[in-house]
């Protein structure tokens, strides 16, 4: 089993990418399970994902990287035991730190679950990049810095020049992380992500 944690700020495109990746893995004959966590007591993503025909475990109320550690571990164990997925995709809240989610799962590796790979896909949104980098730089960088691959999403909403400028800035900030530009809605660039996962 491979586990992918989709990290990234509120509205960056995590759920949209999740559904694209899930359908591509399914088409390749892989069994996919999904865990989604939202900040409040009420979630919207779970409903959206289920409407696409995927089985999603929703973990509302709180954040899996801070207050829901035990809940996340239990859910991972349960999903693995109930469904035996080849791929487990986890979408934390848009304000979670994905590396914390990773550590929480690593803590049960070998005892309660076995997996081959656990990777973080960090997603950022072209359209609002300038705002976040100006107003919330520290948090933004903290959220993305432990990614195994960085996805510059919503490229369809900016010019090629703007996209290149963002990709340039991101690669300066994170010189050792692979960067892929993508449009999660059109699917352009998603195959490339699958290749590095």
């Amino acid at each position, binding site marked *: 089993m491979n586990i992918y944690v989709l990290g990234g700020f*509120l*509205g960056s495109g995590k759920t949209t990418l999740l559904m694209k990746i899930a359908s591509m893995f399914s088409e390749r004959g892989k069994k996919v399970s999904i865990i989604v966590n939202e*900040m*409040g007591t009420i979630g*919207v993503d779970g409903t*959206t994902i289920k409407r696409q025909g995927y089985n999603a475990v929703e973990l509302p109320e709180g954040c899996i990287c801070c207050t829901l550690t035990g809940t996340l571990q239990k859910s991972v164990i349960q999903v693995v035991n109930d469904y035996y997925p080849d791929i487990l995709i986890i979408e934390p809240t848009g304000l979670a730190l994905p590396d*914390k989610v990773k550590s929480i799962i690593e803590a049960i590796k070998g005892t309660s679950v076995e997996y081959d790979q656990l990777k973080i896909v960090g997603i950022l949104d072209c359209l609002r990049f300038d705002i976040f980098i100006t107003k919330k730089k520290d948090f933004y960088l903290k959220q993305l810095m432990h990614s195994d691959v960085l996805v510059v999403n919503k490229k369809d909403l900016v010019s090629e020049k703007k996209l290149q400028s963002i990709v340039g800035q991101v690669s300066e900030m994170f010189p050792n992380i692979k960067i892929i530009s993508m449009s999660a809605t059109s699917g352009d660039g998603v195959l490339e992500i699958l290749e590095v996962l």
Partner: protein
Amino acid sequence: MDKTSIEIAGGVSIGFTGHIHCLDLERIDSMMMEIGEWIEEEAGTLMGHIKMSLKTKEEGITLNLTDLSTGVEHHGDLRNSKSANFNFMVATLDVDKSKLERAIMDAIEHHEICLDIDDSKCFHKHHHYE
């Protein structure tokens, strides 16, 4: 205790479920825009996500607002229904939670959206304009 990542970022979220009667997606879009504009005024920018999923037995749609210039985006279909169950949530940065709650209620009232909100910790109101 250590701050949570939500607290570090200054995040606030409000959500509720319920049932909408006089379903009019244009009015719901406009209601969501009003909330987005309120956040922008309050926090300087909308750094967040306002979203709603609506579903009936047959169909369903998700509405997303992350950027005021892009507006509310629709994913899915809900053409044949006059009423639907909904999940609604706003998650954003740098606003006061009770003020946000008020702004959401105001936007619902301004747009005369008739909905019943399920019992929740935050909301006990029932709105009817029929």
